[in-house]
């Protein structure tokens, strides 16, 4: 049996070649005004891709489009070759897609344990679910100590941790993360970014990360995509984006 967290297998091990996610010429938005205009990007298996850009660039809309919360009005989204257009939001998790929404989406009224179990209920295999939840308690010790606390009693860092753990209970192949650093102290942001790198390196998890916190995101990512007003204006190795002063001044504001 391979790692409990991914269904990766050999494909995940030989990272960086096969694209897990292919976004091609995607147009999407609310009502009649598209927020995304012809966005294309690929996320190679076993890598971290960071999408950065100013407020209103369409970063959150991009993730919401990938998980199906915002309808696609043009273009295609393929996950491991499967066109997601015909897959309902609540079925995408079965295809290996986990989306941690902006503001983490921890259900405040449910306990830590209930939140975690919720992440794997779709599989209906109770034993497997138990094992996955137990593994999360090992991986995230602070959560184990608070397993029966309701979500609203957790600190911001704990909530983000819970949101990531809950997504991992589903054993995703692709993790979509919307602003995990939002509202967190720099020290905790660093911890979370380090965690993402570990998950990617040691467990072969593929991550698409959207961040306002450009520096932290590009430091942890392999590849960076700059989004501006719904269009991709740059897409290259994360390190080279950080070094590009002109680009940083123009689109990222620092």
């Amino acid at each position: 049996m391979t790692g409990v967290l991914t269904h990766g297998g050999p494909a995940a091990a030989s990272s960086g070649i096969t694209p897990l996610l292919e976004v091609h010429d995607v147009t999407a938005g609310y009502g009649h005004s598209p927020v995304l205009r012809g966005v294309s990007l690929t996320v190679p298996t076993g890598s971290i891709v960071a999408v950065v850009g100013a407020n209103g660039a369409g970063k959150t809309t991009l993730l919401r489009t990938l998980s199906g919360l915002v309808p696609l009005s043009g273009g295609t989204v393929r996950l491991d070759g499967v066109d997601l257009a015909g897959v309902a939001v609540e079925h995408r998790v079965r295809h290996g897609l986990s989306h941690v929404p902006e503001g983490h989406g921890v259900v405040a009224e449910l306990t830590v344990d209930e939140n975690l179990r919720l992440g794997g209920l779709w599989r209906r295999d109770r034993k497997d679910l138990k094992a996955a939840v137990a593994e999360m308690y090992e991986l995230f010790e602070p959560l184990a100590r608070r397993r029966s606390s309701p979500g609203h009693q957790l600190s911001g860092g704990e909530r983000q941790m819970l949101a990531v753990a809950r997504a991992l209970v589903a054993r995703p192949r692709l993790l979509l993360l919307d602003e995990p650093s939002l509202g967190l102290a720099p020290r905790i942001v660093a911890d979370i970014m380090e965690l993402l790198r570990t998950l990617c390196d040691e467990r072969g998890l593929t991550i698409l990360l959207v961040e306002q916190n450009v520096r932290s995101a590009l430091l942890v990512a392999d590849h960076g995509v700059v989004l501006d007003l719904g269009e991709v204006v740059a897409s290259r190795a994360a390190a080279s984006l950080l070094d590009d002063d002109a680009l940083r001044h123009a689109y990222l504001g620092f």
Partner: protein
Amino acid sequence: MDQLIFLVGSGLARGSVFAVFALALVLIWRAARIVNFAQGAMAAVATYLAFAVTAATGSYWLGLAAALVGGALLGLVVERGVMRFVAHTSPLNSVIVALGLVTIMQAGLGIAFGNGYRTMNLPFSSTPIVVGGVPLLSPYNIFVLVVAAVLMIGLGLLFTRTPLGLRLRASAFAPETSRLLGVPVSRMLTLGWVLSSAVGALAALLVVPTELGLNPHATDMLFVYAFTVAIVGGLDSPVGAVVGGLVVGLLLSLVTGYLGSTLAPIAVLVLLVAVLLVRPGGIFSAKEARHA
């Protein structure tokens, strides 16, 4: 003292029915953020169904089964056929549509069964058992209390101990997040209506024969009291519905017994106003309001 024991007993029996009906309101409120003003009329339809089935077969229990199944189906039809299409732009929309449903259902019952009172059979005697000269509960009161208790415990276990219950709660609290986690939220919403409508039907069937008398408007007062219960307890809180139901049942019973039946509805309204003044969200409302 003798009278007090009797009043408390019958008050608790009646209160347990209010509690069950209020639970039905809470179930829909939690699932859909709709106060189902049609709950009473829907329960009346199910009660008439029980009446018709019992009349045709001679069996109270078949009638009860028909009320539960009919109530559940009615919940399905109302949600999938009507409420699903009501725009959520204003909470008033669903209220108006529900009131329309009330009119249609009550008129339909009048056409089908006439507007007069009908007599319903009871499975057990409604004469109080006398112990040492003191009239205690009637066998029917005991039946009502047992059914209500079993139902409350069953619902409690369903919601807190089963994966389905976890799905139902998550869908109610955070529909979007739940969908992202693979929960079929739309199906959970329908299930909430089905469950609620069946529970409401059962409550009506328990209380209509002895307290209200079967007619198309039989459940109007039940709705009013149960709505009060739900507000007093907190629309979000199943525990509040149960405690509120027992409190309102006791209050009605005691005020009727000691001060006269004309004062009983006023006492309930005084309680409602007092709770709204002191704790507008209800006694058992969540401390932290939900914004998303």
